[in-house]
């Protein structure tokens, strides 16, 4: 179950208006002496003006206040909850309770503090566990979260609400969640320069309150996903599921990961307002999430680092990966070098020819590139071969899948690791524009950058569009538009949509962009399309290349051809929107790797 959430220290009408609509369960107003102190008359005025959605409760925080003062405020404002933050006695609480008020009591964390909860249990409906400081808590300092389970267990035993407070921010929520807190109370962690930040509030609710809950226990996103692999691999997948569950509950994993993302890959990546492009297009403001500025030039590294840390924790010394264009291969080779793991990258002979420099790059990074000569000698065959190798060496080998595809738990893990894109975007967009974007657009091959961008917005109202490669056109047979043209089927371990013939044989896709040139698509995208939450469209080689040139010339950013597909769709979308609306594009990678292909394309076009 999701933890309860309280946004505390709301101190203006504007903040109050924003906070009540962020899916927090409790909104806290501080009447005690504090830098966030508000007067009961102000609070009463906000309540008169602003409709509070059903299910949201307003709490007033008092510290050793006069009983009558608390009762009066609670009735006049009105308050749903009176929170006693000082050294109030059980008798004080009893008086409040007799007035029919709901009462929360703050317990200051120290050894054995969980035992104090029982003393108040007769009259308190809930507890706030806060750090003990000389000023009496509320100082924005975290306590040792190892103790969280003891408070949770006591609250469960007593049947009371319990919120963990003190020093919680959007950056450490994942770490705290690993201790399964029954509730979270946050104040300074959702502020920027002392003001409540709507972006941070939304990030916090996105992190704490996911109502979208796919995949299920069997790894299903609605009808899609699952585990369609040879029996030999089933044990390895179970082992991986368990290992992933373990790290999800291990704060040290997130510390390592965030530290590597920051110090090794350069996260957070910036958000850029494309002012010139916006002017050129006319219409909505276009923003770019700059995944191209990651180490190795694309979002792929986010996932490669995370899975490499996981592999290492599982005690696997060998990593294998598949690669099409070589971007995931380079990212995996990079992460393997960083974490001292041996690395084999499977790559189709045809792709090795087209991406000679990336082969060399992987070798420079110490990886062994294995030439795949089966089938069509491209990405799907490289994936088959990687799976065959894994089946044979499953004991000591970790298969590091690069996209949101494959058998459960891969689509889940890749989504979770890539969600850093969407989480950062939420915060950055709200910081820059004061609200969420109207529309978000990302390109989709297997779909990892898109799902990472979309996932934190799934519960919001933001329009989401995935862009597939239409190659020479979806009316031809030279495209990679899996959702637009494919039918249901199983490839590489999961049920999704596929390009296939009547007999169920996989068809070779085509796109000028090697990263979108895949006959399948991640199962979660199949689900989101069929559920109507995300729309998918297809963009041709030509449209993508025009968008690539346009961005290069107007903004001085050479995007990857993959990302240029998203841009082409964004340009059309922005043109159809009103000034002041916003479109956010996931610029998944940089185009340096594509210079050769771009040159060739231009030469062929000129002929």
């Amino acid at each position, binding site marked *: 179950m999701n933890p309860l959430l309280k946004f505390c220290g709301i101190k203006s009408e504007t903040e109050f208006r924003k906070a009540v609509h962020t899916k927090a369960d409790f909104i806290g107003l501080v009447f005690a002496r504090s830098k966030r102190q508000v007067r009961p008359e102000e609070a009463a005025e906000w309540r008169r003006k602003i409709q509070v959605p059903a299910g949201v409760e307003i709490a007033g925080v008092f510290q050793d206040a006069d009983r009558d003062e608390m009762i009066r405020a609670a009735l006049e404002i009105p308050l749903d909850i009176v929170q006693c933050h000082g050294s109030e006695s059980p008798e004080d609480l009893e008086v409040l309770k007799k007035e029919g008020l709901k009462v929360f009591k703050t317990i200051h964390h120290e050894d054995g503090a969980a035992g104090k909860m029982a003393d108040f249990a007769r009259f308190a409906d809930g507890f706030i566990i806060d750090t003990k400081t000389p000023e009496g808590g509320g100082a924005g300092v975290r306590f040792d979260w190892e103790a969280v389970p003891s408070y949770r267990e006591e609250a469960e035993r007593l049947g009371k609400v319990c919120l963990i407070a003190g020093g919680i921010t959007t950056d450490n929520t994942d770490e705290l969640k690993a201790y399964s807190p029954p509730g979270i109370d946050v104040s300074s962690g959702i502020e920027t320069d002392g003001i409540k930040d709507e972006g941070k509030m939304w990030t916090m609710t996105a992190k704490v309150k996911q109502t979208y809950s796919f995949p299920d226990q069997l790894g299903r996103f609605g009808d899609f996903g699952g585990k369609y692999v040879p*029996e030999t691999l089933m044990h390895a997948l179970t082992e991986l599921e368990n290992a992933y569950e373990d790290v999800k509950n291990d704060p040290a994993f997130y510390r390592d990961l965030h530290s590597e993302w920051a110090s090794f890959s350069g996260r957070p990546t910036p958000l850029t307002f494309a002012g010139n492009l916006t002017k050129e297009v006319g219409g909505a403001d276009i923003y770019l999430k700059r995944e191209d500025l990651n180490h190795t030039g694309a979002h792929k590294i986010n996932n490669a680092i995370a899975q490499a840390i996981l592999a290492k924790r599982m005690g696997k010394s060998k990593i294998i990966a598949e690669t099409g264009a070589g971007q995931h291969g380079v990212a995996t080779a990079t992460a393997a070098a960083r974490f001292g793991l041996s690395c084999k990258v499977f790559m189709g002979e045809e792709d090795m020819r087209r991406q000679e420099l990336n082969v060399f790059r992987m070798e420079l990074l110490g990886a062994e590139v294995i030439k795949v000569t089966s*089938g069509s000698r491209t990405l799907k065959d490289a994936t088959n071969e990687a799976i065959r190798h894994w089946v044979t060496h499953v004991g000591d080998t970790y298969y590091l899948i690069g996209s949101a595809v494959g058998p459960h738990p891969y689509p889940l893990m890749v989504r979770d690791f890539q969600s850093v894109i969407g989480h950062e975007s939420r915060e950055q967009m709200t910081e820059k524009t004061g609200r969420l974007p109207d529309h978000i657009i990302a390109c989709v091959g297997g779909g990892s950058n898109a799902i990472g961008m979309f996932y934190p917005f799934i519960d919001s109202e933001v329009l989401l569009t995935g862009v597939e490669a239409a190659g020479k056109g979806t009316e031809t047979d030279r495209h990679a538009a899996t959702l637009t043209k494919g039918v249901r089927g199983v490839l590489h371990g999961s049920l999704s949509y596929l390009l296939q013939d009547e007999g169920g044989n996989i068809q070779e896709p085509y796109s000028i962009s090697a990263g979108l040139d895949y006959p399948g698509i991640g199962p979660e995208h199949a689900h989101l399309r069929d559920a109507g939450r995300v729309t998918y469209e297809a963009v041709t080689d030509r449209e993508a290349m025009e968008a690539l040139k346009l961005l290069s010339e107007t903004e001085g950013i050479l995007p990857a051809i993959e990302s240029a597909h998203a841009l082409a769709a964004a340009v059309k979308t922005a043109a159809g929107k009103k000034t002041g609306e916003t479109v956010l594009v996931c610029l998944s990678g940089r185009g340096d790797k594509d210079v050769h292909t771009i040159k060739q394309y231009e030469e062929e076009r000129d002929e």
Partner: protein
Amino acid sequence: MGQLMSAEFKNRKNLFIPYLMAGDPDPGTTIEAALALEEAGADVIEWGVPYSDPLADGPVIEQAAIRSIAQGMNILKAVELAGRAREQGLTIPVVLFTYINPVLATGESLLVEKAARAGIDGLLIPDLPYEESGGLKRLAREHGIALIPLIAPTSRKRVKKIAGDSDGFLYLVSSLGVTGTREQFQEDLSDIIREVNNVTDTPVAVGFGISKREHVKKFHELADGVVIGSALVRFLHERRNKLNGSERNSVLAELKQFVRELIS
């Protein structure tokens, strides 16, 4: 009801189960080779459906699939071909060996109906593990067809639940890896076989990598049967030119001899 669902089949020992890729080198040869195998003492035939991405198979069967697809073979044609083999006198049980995607592309109900009508007794799907197999297993049972489950050396705790609800025979994967001949078998399968025998009387056939008389002997002692695939596919492929000419009958005779020696 298919032959694999009969009570009588559960008591079978020393099963010899050869695999043929439908349509390789050509459909006519598949039928005649099947008849020759029956004559030579085969107990069940695995009828391979060619698929573009056979990730449980090694290069021999993958190449055979590519050749067969190039000639226009597909899952429904392979089912029809099995029906024709029945008409021409094939009597032993036939197991359709296919990946799950061709089954889904055809439609599970349609495929099972057509398979039953063609006289197919079993379905073996290497990328359909126990957890995903419930629906198809029920459907197959309704038509008297056995969905043959696989067990691997890594199955561990899974052995019990897989074996406990099994039809036909259990396909025990001899070693980690894909199909194709091996010189050595490192896994000790006796524990798994004992565990299987504790929960079911379904026979156990060992497959993957078996190509020699000594392998057959070893696994017949240990289990209830063996599956031979790549070795036979290679045998026919190497003689494809002879099969097109006057030496056709001598190749088929040689095939019978090859099998008799394997199981002697």
